[in-house]
Each structure stands twice: as structure tokens, then as C-alpha cells.
């Protein structure tokens, strides 16, 4: 047992800190700090800066741009990024479709896609969820019927995050309607400019447009765009969802957000007094800091034990508690604002500070955190079933 990082890891941490605080445009990092929405260009610029330095997709195989980092180093990379207000590489590219193509795709498909995926020259969208499916992913109904060298795809996907920016979409489609639920599903890549693909943005309760419905009406897709084998898509999806759970705890970004809130709190009381002089606020900050410490340390323990890249079952703890704390911090921001938190739509002429304006939309928006990407109910099920062996 040892607390200290190795000299090598200390140096690595320093290198990352240096990189993220100097090589990512300050203007983009300021936007993240102020919790304003990033444009597509901002996100691309961030990722390309990382990719230029060879650190956008460290989790990929080295031959496709990955790094032979230890799990701890990958964790440090991820934390330092968030502490520096840097947006992580687009998950759909870096954590989802990239690793699937690298693991299961043909050489041809790897060459077609991986470099562009790492560099965000292709913006990927995710086509997994369907209406009426919820957490029951395998009940999907979008079909892909083989006709010669093409699949004809019909159906509808939903909750496609940032689908409005998407160039390509990776899909789970049903290729064998006779097979039982999980069997008969394939993993297919579709050019979103194909005729018959329609993207409809869904407005969220905070007024933002970040998820979409995507409709497929007789979309013709070359069979070359199939990843791996036909009807094996469920296996690839499980692989993907497993990766998704690694690094799911937004520790660094929540730490940064709480630290910033604490700074603002110092003048957010009536007449510019410090809210930290209010024992209830001070206790809440202290408690959240302690809970975040526990979460961060748990993430480190998980990292230290994730040997072969497979997700540690305790990853569910990170997702569950991580989103709870994330939501608690967004709520604290609103509470700090008091009535100023109402002024979400206030313009330039307003006397309300900018941070008050974004607080409540952010709070409302982050209600999603405990729903998307495996709801907290699903995480509890995983913990109860996989870790505690409690199966109904």
C-alpha cells in the first residue's frame, strides 16, 4: 500500500496538466467553466488539438492511435482534462464506435474509419435506443433487410445525443426477425446523408436541443458497412456498453464545478457577503467535498483493479453516486442564486451575473444524468445482481 504516485506518474500528471491548460484554446475552456453550450466547432477543435498530440484516443490499440498507458494514467488523463475545463473527446467516437471497429471490424473498415474517427473528421452518432424500449435495449425493432449488396433499413431511433451534428451513425438493427431478442441483431454503420435518413431534434425541458429522433425510411446501406459478423451485434453492443461504464464518474468536472461554486459563494450572499459564513451552506459544501473525495478514491481503486480493460463491477457505484453528486452540485448552484436563478433568459442588459442565468437550465438538464447511459435503476440492478448475487 502506498499513497504517493510513482515518479513516472507524477511526471505524467504534470505533463497532462501542462497540456490541457496551455494547448486547448482558452476561449473554449472559459465556455466550459461558465457552463455555456459548446458549438460543434469548439468540440472538434478540442479533440483535434488532443489528437494532434496523440492523446485523443488512448484507449484504442496502439496501431490505431492508442497509447500503452496504464489504467491509472488513463484516469489521470481524464481527470486533468476535466479539472482544466476541457471537454473530453466525443464519446461516440472515442469510447464507443472506435473501440468496436478496432476490436471487431475488418481491416478495410478500420482503415476507412478509425483515423477520421479519432480526429473527429467524422462525427458519429449513436443509434441504439428506440421509442418504447427504455432500458430494455434488446427489444429494438429497426430492421435491416438484405437485398443484394445492400441492407434496406427501416425504423426509428431516439435519444440520439447531438445527432444534429452527426455525419455517420452506428446502429443496432434487427437482421434476423425470427431469432430471439438478443440474437438476430447486427451492428451497422450508416452515412447520415443517405436518402431516407431524417433527424428530428427533441427539445429538452431546459430548452436545449441535444437529443434527436432519427428516422430511417428505406435507407439503403452497403453491406460493407456491417461491423463484424451479421447477427453478432448484441455482443459488440455489450462490449461497447462495458467500455461506456469505464470512466463514467464525472469526478473531475464535478470537482471543478464545486470549486467554482465555492469561489462564487464568497460574494453571493445578500449585499455581496459570503454564503460560506452561513453554516448550512458551509456544511453542505464540506459534505459534498467529502463525498466527492470518496468517489474519486473509489474511482482510483476501480482503476487500480481493472486489469484487462474490462469494467470492474464497481463501475456501477461510480455511475450511480457520480451522477447523484453531479446533480447535487447543479442544485447547489441554483440554491446559491436564490431568486436570481429565475433569470435564465436575461440578456446583456441584465444586472444578474451570468452564472445565475445558466444555473437552473443546467440543473434541469442534468436530471438526465441519472437516466441516460444506463439509468441509476439499472446500476442498482447490476450491483444487486452481479456484485451481491441478489437475483429475483
Amino acid at each position, binding site marked *: 500500500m502506498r499513497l504517493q504516485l510513482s515518479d513516472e506518474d507524477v511526471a505524467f500528471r504534470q505533463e497532462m496538466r501542462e497540456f490541457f491548460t496551455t494547448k486547448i484554446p482558452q476561449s473554449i475552456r472559459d465556455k466550459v467553466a461558465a457552463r455555456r453550450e459548446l458549438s460543434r466547432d469548439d468540440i472538434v477543435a478540442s479533440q483535434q488539438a488532443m489528437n494532434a498530440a496523440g492523446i485523443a484516443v488512448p484507449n484504442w490499440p496502439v496501431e490505431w492511435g492508442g497509447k500503452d498507458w496504464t489504467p491509472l494514467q488513463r484516469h489521470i488523463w481524464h481527470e486533468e482534462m476535466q479539472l482544466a475545463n476541457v471537454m473530453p473527446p466525443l464519446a461516440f467516437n472515442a469510447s464507443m464506435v472506435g473501440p468496436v471497429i478496432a476490436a471487431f471490424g475488418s481491416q478495410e473498415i478500420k482503415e476507412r474509419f478509425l483515423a477520421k474517427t479519432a480526429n473527429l473528421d467524422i462525427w458519429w452518432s449513436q443509434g441504439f*435506443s428506440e421509442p*418504447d*424500449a*427504455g*432500458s*430494455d435495449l434488446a*427489444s429494438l425493432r429497426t430492421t435491416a433487410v438484405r437485398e443484394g449488396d445492400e441492407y434496406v433499413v427501416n425504423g426509428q431511433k*431516439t*435519444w440520439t445525443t447531438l445527432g444534429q451534428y452527426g455525419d455517420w451513425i452506428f446502429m443496432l438493427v434487427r437482421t434476423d426477425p425470427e431469432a430471439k431478442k438478443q440474437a438476430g441483431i447486427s451492428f451497422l454503420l450508416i452515412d447520415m446523408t443517405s436518402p431516407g435518413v431524417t433527424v428530428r431534434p*427533441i*427539445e*429538452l*425541458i*431546459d*430548452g436545449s436541443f441535444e*437529443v434527436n429522433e432519427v428516422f430511417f425510411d428505406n435507407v439503403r446501406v452497403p453491406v460493407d458497412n456491417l461491423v463484424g459478423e451479421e447477427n453478432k451485434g448484441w455482443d459488440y453492443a455489450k462490449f461497447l456498453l462495458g467500455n461506456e461504464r469505464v470512466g463514467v464518474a464525472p469526478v473531475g468536472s464535478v470537482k471543478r464545478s464545486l470549486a467554482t461554486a465555492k469561489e462564487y459563494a464568497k460574494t*453571493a*450572499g*445578500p*449585499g*455581496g457577503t459570503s454564503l460560506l459564513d*452561513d453554516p*448550512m451552506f458551509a456544511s453542505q459544501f464540506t459534505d459534498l467535498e467529502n463525498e466527492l473525495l470518496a468517489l474519486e478514491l473509489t474511482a482510483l481503486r476501480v482503476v487500480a483493479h481493472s486489469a484487462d480493460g474490462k469494467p470492474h463491477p464497481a463501475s456501477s457505484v461510480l455511475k450511480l453516486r457520480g451522477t447523484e453528486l453531479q446533480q447535487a452540485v447543479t*442544485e447547489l448552484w*441554483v*440554491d446559491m*442564486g*436564490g*431568486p*436570481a*436563478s*429565475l*433569470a*435564465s*433568459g*436575461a*440578456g446583456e*442588459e*441584465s*444586472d*444578474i451575473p451570468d452564472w445565475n442565468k445558466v444555473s*437552473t*437550465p443546467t*440543473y*434541469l438538464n442534468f*436530471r*438526465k444524468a*441519472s*437516466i*441516460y447511459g444506463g*439509468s*441509476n*435503476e439499472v446500476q*442498482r440492478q447490476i450491483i444487486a445482481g452481479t456484485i451481491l448475487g441478489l437475483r429475483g
Partner: protein
Amino acid sequence: MDFTLDAEQVALRDAVRGLLGKSYDSTETRRAVTKQDPGWDEKTWSQLAEMGALGLPFAEADGGMGAGPVEVSIVAEEIGRVIAPEPYVEAVVLAGGLVAAVGSDEQRAEILGALSEGTLVPVFAHNEPGQRYSESAAGVTATRSGDGWTLTGVKEPVIGGARADLLIVSAAVDSGVGLFLVQPDASGLTRDGYATFEGGRAARIGLADTPAIALGDGGDQSAAIATVIAEAQIAYGHESLGAMQTALELTTEYLKTRKQFGVPLATFQALTFRAADMYVELELARSTVTWATLVLLDGGDALEAASRAKLQVSKAGRHIGKEAIQLHGGIGMTAEYSVGHFTSRLTAIDHTLGDGRHHLARLAETLEDHEFIEPLP
């Protein structure tokens, strides 16, 4: 002690429910209304006036209906059930309440009459940037000028401030906090309106040597302000009750009808138990808020009752608002579906006139004044 509505009150409730149910028959209808300024429906407002709902708390001599806090609470609760965006609490309970409390005979008759008829919408311009939930006024000062006054400073966010026909502005006077009537087109007045996250409207009101008339005698009105704010806090409590009730109904309906893994969600005890906890929170809040209205009716300690109601509603509203979305899952996050709007509105009310934390602190100051709380006098 009696917690039931009498026949007339039931009739009022049904009438308001019928009217608002038509005006806001779907999420789409409400969204269409809240997307356009003034953020609410003038026709619905007129209909509320015709029905007598806008004049309920005011004396008949002032053009009102001579009813009381129970009738007001009925309307507020129905407003909440469909989260109607009309500024009922803001114009009637808060602004109207101040006029009724401290206005001269003339001011009362003129303003409350027009308010009751639906032809004049007054709002209370009280919040100031950087002052949180302060009940005093530090950022706007009033200066005597001839027979009248001038005001200088900034009020923000002022709910409904952009559409208002009349502003009632709190301002620092020598003796404390005064109340002043300001015309929206008065000189030196600027107003910049904007939408709030739940579909409401607020504004920044800038005042620069803006002419104003004292509401009442121009002296310190702190006590009246505190009492009227308490009345509004309690009315907001009823608005929240309505919203929580609908949020719970939407959630239970969803659990009953929505299937996952081939069975209704209501099969999953982990979900139905959470719906049960929502019900518990709602009923406890309902008890406290209803009691607070009865304290008003009884002439009891309005400030204490309001803080108790607001604290309970703050906790219940957060719990129910969050759980309603979570138990819906993704659909609950979308603006096209209804439930998220209820969560939004509950959040907005929570941060209007003091959230739970604020009222807990206020109540804590009186902790040693009593052995225990005796709810029935």
C-alpha cells in the same frame, strides 16, 4: 376545525378547473402560449376576471368579491394543476394584496377595481440583484419631489414586469421601506423583459429619477410587505400542491401503462414504492399548506405559517419534481411531454420568495419561543 370546502367553494373550484382545463388542455397548448409574449393568455385572464376569480380577496367596496384566503387558495391550486402561466399570485395576491393592505381608499378602488375586472395587471417590483431573498429594499431609493417622489435604482428579476400595467416598487425611505406606484411609461424607467426557464416572464426594471406616487402614506410599510409576502408564499404553496398532484398523477399513470421487458412498470416494486413516497410527501405538504391558509383565515401568525408551508413545499416539490422525471425515464426529459414542465415550475416557485433553506433558517430563529407547535389555537 374543518378541512373541507363548502358547496360554494367546491363550485368555485369546479368552475376554475373547467376554465383552465379548457385553456390548457395539453402541453402543446401551454407551450404555444408561453412561447409568445406576454407568456400567458389574455383571454384566459379575462375569463378569470369574468368569473370573479381576480377580485376574490378584495372588499366589495373596492370592486372585489369579499372572499378570503381559502377562495384564493382554490384558484392558486387549480392554476398549479395545469401550471397555467397567468400571473395570478403575482398580480392578485402580491400586488393586489399590497394595495389592499396599505392603499388609500381611492387607490384601492381604482387599482383593485381594474384588477378585478381584468383590465389592469399590477406587479410587485421588489427583488434586487445580489440581495437574494431580502425583504427590505437597498438598491432603490425614494426621494421626495414636490407632492410626489422619484425613485432611482434597479429591480430584478421582477416577475411579469415587462407586461405589467402598473409597478408597485419597494424602495428605501428614511423610516424604512416604502411602497410606490410607478407607471411603466414613466420617465427614466427602462424595462427589459425576458423569459424564465419554466415559460414565465421576468424583467429588469431600471429607475432613474423616475416619478412615483406613494402607495399609502409614504412611510415604512415593512410590516405590510412582510404580511402580504407571507400570503403570497402560502398561495404559491397551493400552486405547488396543484403541480405536485398532477406530477404524481402523470407518474402513476405512466407506471401503469408503460411496459418494459414485457410487463408494466408498475410491476417493479422499486418504482411503485418510490411513487408511494411521493404521495407521502404530497400529503404532508398538503396538510401544512392548507393549515397555513386556515391560519390566515383565523388571523394567526402569517409569517410563521408561511415559512412552515414554504419549507414543507420546498422539500416535497424537489422530491416529487425529481422523482417524477426519474420514474418516467427519458421521456420525462423532453419538452414535448408534460411532466418536466411541472418540475420546472416547482423549481421556479421554490426560488420565489424564499426556498426551504431560507425559511428553515427563519424558523430556527424562533425555535426557543415555544415548547412545541400547537397547530390548533
